[in-house]
């Protein structure tokens, strides 16, 4: 009993932290800095607990006698938990300066972030569709509120409006799918669904298929697949920088926690069914995403557009998964990690810069950036290279695994298209590097503040490089091999 409770401790700590923050948020004794640190403290505490209990594999379902098989405890979910908490920690720490520079943040903000992390963690542990939906809603609703947090800013509200309307609209599809699956299976538990799919022919399962497809619409929406992509750029643009960072890195991968589980375990038997559909969406996403990305002038919007393209790559992986590729699962997982790190880094730098200037960041504003801030420019270049899939960065290996899995599953054309869009993506990523390096700046070189956010950004830069070419030389720090081992292990724990 107690040991099972310990297993829920990470989540409990998060919720607790949220309550505590709510309580103290209006106290005069805690300024923003403190609140931030408290939030981080809870997150770190939670991740420490996660580390401690990481290897305890003896219990598969939490309180299975009470809950039924609704709450799963596997490596997969633990890895995701870790990523969520790390993502949140990074978001909070890197944006420390940003919070201080904007007056509209307060205690509830951190509480909402913790709520949203809680929702994501719940999502990764959910082994039951309704629970998953509710968890998703927790995460989403908190993020909706966060997106609109800058209330004096029209665009922030507008972004919230759009995200909320569209998010709820597609959220309804998730529930619709759940209802249909419930109708087909008689249960929403994933174990039952897996059993059902394993024991039925594909033509007997049309209701389940329809339901699953509706669920996938929500997933597609959240990861920004074309044609469900239209919110991405607007919302990323409108949201305050920390939230954009949080959404692009953490929230985006959260949706894969459920998506991968569904695709690999529950609908594993019937994945072939929607391979064509998935391929069509993948193609649209790759092309549309790169179209969106190259037509932007704001760096933030460009990164938003590019995140659509990255969803496209992930979809290639998922589509390969459906066609029976062995490598696809780890490939997607690895890509998620790679994208997570690179996106945290790149958006982190954006908000780092935004915390010191009030201008919008167009490409032009980066002119001479390398002169003003050589180290930041170097880091930004590393992240750009990683996103572009330049070798010796983790992004390259990510693409490598994705494309080989596509080749393995025989989707040569899809891999080719992926390569092509990767090529196009070089244009908009290198454009930023070009802006930073190719222009001289009149401004004096600023001294680089050595604070927590810069250190973290540097750390992320190192991880990006180390993850692309590092070996297992240094213990405890996963290199290129380490990350794919983790991805492998994670996916294996699903089956």
């Amino acid at each position, binding site marked *: 009993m107690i040991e099972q409770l310990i297993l829920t401790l990470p989540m409990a700590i998060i919720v607790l932290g949220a309550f505590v923050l709510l309580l103290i948020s209006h106290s005069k004794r805690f300024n923003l800095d403190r609140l931030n640190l408290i939030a981080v403290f809870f997150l770190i505490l939670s991740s420490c607990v996660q580390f401690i209990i990481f290897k305890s594999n003896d219990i598969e379902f939490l309180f299975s006698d009470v809950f039924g098989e609704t709450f799963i405890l596997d490596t997969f979910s633990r890895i995701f938990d870790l990523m969520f908490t790390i993502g949140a920690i990074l978001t909070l720490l890197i944006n420390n300066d940003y919070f201080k520079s904007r007056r509209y943040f307060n205690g509830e903000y951190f509480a909402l972030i913790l709520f949203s992390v809680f929702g994501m963690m719940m999502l990764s542990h959910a082994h039951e569709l309704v629970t998953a939906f509710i968890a998703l809603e927790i995460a989403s*609703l908190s993020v909706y509120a966060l997106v*609109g947090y800058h*209330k004096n800013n029209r665009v922030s509200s507008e972004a919230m*409006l759009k995200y909320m309307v569209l998010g709820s609209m597609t959220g309804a599809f998730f529930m619709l799918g759940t*209802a249909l699956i*419930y109708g087909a299976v*008689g*249960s929403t538990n994933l174990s039952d669904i897996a059993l059902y799919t394993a024991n039925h022919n594909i033509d007997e399962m049309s209701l389940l298929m329809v339901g699953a497809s509706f669920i996938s619409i929500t997933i597609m929406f959240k990861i920004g697949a074309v044609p469900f992509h239209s919110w991405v750029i607007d919302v990323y643009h409108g949201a305050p920088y920390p939230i954009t960072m949080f959404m692009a890195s953490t929230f985006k991968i959260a949706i894969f926690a459920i998506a991968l589980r569904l695709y690999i375990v529950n609908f594993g038997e019937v994945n072939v069914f929607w391979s064509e559909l998935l391929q069509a969406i993948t193609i649209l996403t790759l092309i549309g995403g790169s179209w969106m990305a190259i037509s932007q002038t704001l760096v933030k919007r460009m990164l938003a557009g590019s995140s659509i393209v990255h969803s496209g790559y992930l979809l290639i992986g998922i589509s390969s998964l459906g066609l029976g590729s062995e490598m696809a699962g780890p490939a997607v997982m690895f890509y998620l990690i790679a994208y997570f790190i690179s996106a945290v880094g790149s958006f982190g730098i954006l908000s780092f810069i935004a915390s010191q200037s009030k201008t919008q960041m167009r490409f032009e504003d980066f002119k001479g950036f390398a002169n003003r801030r050589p180290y930041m420019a170097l880091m930004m270049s590393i992240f750009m290279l990683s996103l572009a899939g330049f070798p010796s960065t983790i992004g390259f290996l990510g693409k490598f695994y994705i494309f080989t899995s596509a080749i393995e599953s025989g989707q040569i054309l899809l891999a080719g298209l992926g390569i092509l869009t990767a090529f196009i993506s070089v244009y908009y990523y290198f454009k930023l590097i070009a802006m930073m390096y190719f222009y001289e700046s009149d401004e004096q070189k600023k001294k680089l503040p050595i604070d927590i956010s810069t250190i973290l950004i540097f750390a992320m830069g190192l991880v990006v490089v180390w993850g692309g070419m590092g070996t297992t030389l240094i213990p405890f720090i996963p290199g290129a091999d380490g990350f794919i081992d983790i991805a492998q292990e994670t996916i294996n724990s699903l089956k």
Partner: protein
Amino acid sequence: MSPNLFFLLASLLFSIGLVGLVSRRNLFVLYMSIELMLSSINLLLATFSKVLGDASGSVIALLMIGVIAAEAALFLAMIVHIYRSSRSVDSDNFTALAQGKE
């Protein structure tokens, strides 16, 4: 009495919700359309619950009502905030983020 009619009703309601969502600009109507969609899912769940002879469906629907309430809260808060700040509930008025306007 066959469940077909219930299914029909539910799917129709869902579609009406979709139609309202897409074709209207009034934020209140958008909000209500979403609520309608979710409610139609509740109807579906209740129907399945009866079809399958399993009470879980009803329980899910019950939980759903909670979710609907949560969404409603946030939605209404947002509408109030938006109306307050821009004196408009017309969704077409919010295009500051459109491509080319940044």
